[in-house]
């Protein structure tokens, strides 16, 4: 009796196994087939429903920091997948979630801003991320410094760069070169007077000769720029009256356009080009 039952069970078990193998093969083949069918997606549809971190942090049951880690890890994978064309559409939103969940987690601010500038070309998002980093971590000078760097090098907005460098300088621990970057930003934005005063201050406080030399070169450059602008302006006025540029800078004194011809910081004469009206220094400010 027992033998008959087990004999009956064997083909049934065999059939069942064949059935399992067949169904598994079928659904795996269908899965491969379904993956080949391209489905339309909304731009950013894969992440558009992630709620704001403000709300999400209440749903993480005390695991806010872990949730921030997980989303950050996911974000790195997501933003390094070039096949997702619309991946940058909600960049600031995604990083704001991580920042809200763990405001003291430093990497996402820096990485997020880097992705925004280098990959997405979205400086607005970069500033938003770095501003959040600075607001959440007022003791960290790196965020206003990075923002100043982006404003100066990428956006070429020297006023904005100067503002960020000034903010950075006020944070204890900020490196001293930030002051020099600010002085340079002031120069580039055209505020030559403040730039001169700042470089002069740096020169007077310089602790070593190398620093003095750097400040001195910048002072030379600022003075040369101020003087050259004044001389070129006088030459332009001369041309307005006489219809041609003066033959030399001394002509400007004789005709009353200038009281005296200024000299550079080293006491040397500027080089004047009577054809173009341009005024230059004898040597480059950086090769004195």
């Amino acid at each position, binding site marked *: 009796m027992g033998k008959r039952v087990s004999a009956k069970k064997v083909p049934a*078990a065999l059939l069942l196994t064949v059935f399992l193998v067949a*169904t598994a093969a079928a659904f795996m083949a269908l899965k491969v087939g379904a993956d080949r069918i391209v489905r339309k997606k*909304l731009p950013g549809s894969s992440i558009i429903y992630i709620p704001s971190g403000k709300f999400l942090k209440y749903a993480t049951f005390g695991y806010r920091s872990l949730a921030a880690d997980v989303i950050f890890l996911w974000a790195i994978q997501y933003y390094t997948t070039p096949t997702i064309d619309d991946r940058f559409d909600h960049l600031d939103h995604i990083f704001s979630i991580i920042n809200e969940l763990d405001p003291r987690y430093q990497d996402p601010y820096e990485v997020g801003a880097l992705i925004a500038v280098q990959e997405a070309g979205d400086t607005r998002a970069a500033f938003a991320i770095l501003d959040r980093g600075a607001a959440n971590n007022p003791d960290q000078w790196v965020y206003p410094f990075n923002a100043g760097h982006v404003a100066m090098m990428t956006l070429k907005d020297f006023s904005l760069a100067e503002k960020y460098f000034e903010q950075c300088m006020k944070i204890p621990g900020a490196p001293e070169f930030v002051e020099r970057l600010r002085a340079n930003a002031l120069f580039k934005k055209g505020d030559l007077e403040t730039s001169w005063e700042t470089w002069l201050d740096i020169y007077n406080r310089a602790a070593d000769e190398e620093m003095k030399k750097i400040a001195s070169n910048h002072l030379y450059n600022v003075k040369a720029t101020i003087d050259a602008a004044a001389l070129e302006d006088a030459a332009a006025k001369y041309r307005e009256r006489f219809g041609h540029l003066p033959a030399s800078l001394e002509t400007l004194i004789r005709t009353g356009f200038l009281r005296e011809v200024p000299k550079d910081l080293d006491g040397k004469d500027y080089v004047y080009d009577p054809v173009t009206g341009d005024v230059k220094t004898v040597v480059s400010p950086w090769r004195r």
Partner: protein
Amino acid sequence: MKIWAIAGITFKEAKRDRILYLLFFFAALGIVASRALAVLTVGDRVKIIKDVGLASISVFGVLMAILIGTGLVYKEIDKKTIFTLLAKPLHRAEFILGKFLGLVLTLFVMTLAMSLIFLAIVYAHTLKIEGVLLVAVGYIFLELVLITAVAVLFSSFSTPILSSLFALAFYLIGHLSWGLELIIKKMRPGAGKALVRALYTFLPDLENFNFKTEVVHGLPIPPGIYVSAFLYGVCYTAFILGLAVLVFRRRDFI
């Protein structure tokens, strides 16, 4: 015939379960409350109603499948009614399939009821019956059928609490397995990549049944995916039921 008799009894048993009505109440509440959520938005309110409504049907449907399905077989064993049943000329596979079909019938009725409330709410805003929403609901139901099979599988050898956790894990894996595809793209060719690919192909992909975004935004759905997703659901369900029968056949109740 025996399968349908067990399915009928399971259906009767399930409809007496209070948890079913509790979940239905919350699902209905979710669908109706989508109107209140829509007020908070700026712009397209109907989109919010559709999103929340479809999500409610899906989430509460899955909870129904798991919470009722995981106790189906276990209860029979726990109350020893299984002895009465198996003493009759009834194959164990028929028992499993009957239980499964009974719960599928229950879920069908519940999904239908939730869909009617959902369509009524959408109708109140758009003044038209949007039949295309039923495509998403149909595939949600197909997903529920698969989850039911999983719940029955775990119920055949484990306690309801553990079975619920396993079934929930299956559901989560099913909706997150697409992440493996990203990993595969980043991996170097080799045994590791082949292993991950095999895992990716074998693990359930419940996103195949997710047409919510397309339906809500009116995006075109490739016709091939309908058939493919349907057959995928049927084959995966058959596989899980086959496993359940295999496990249940070897189960010793003494």
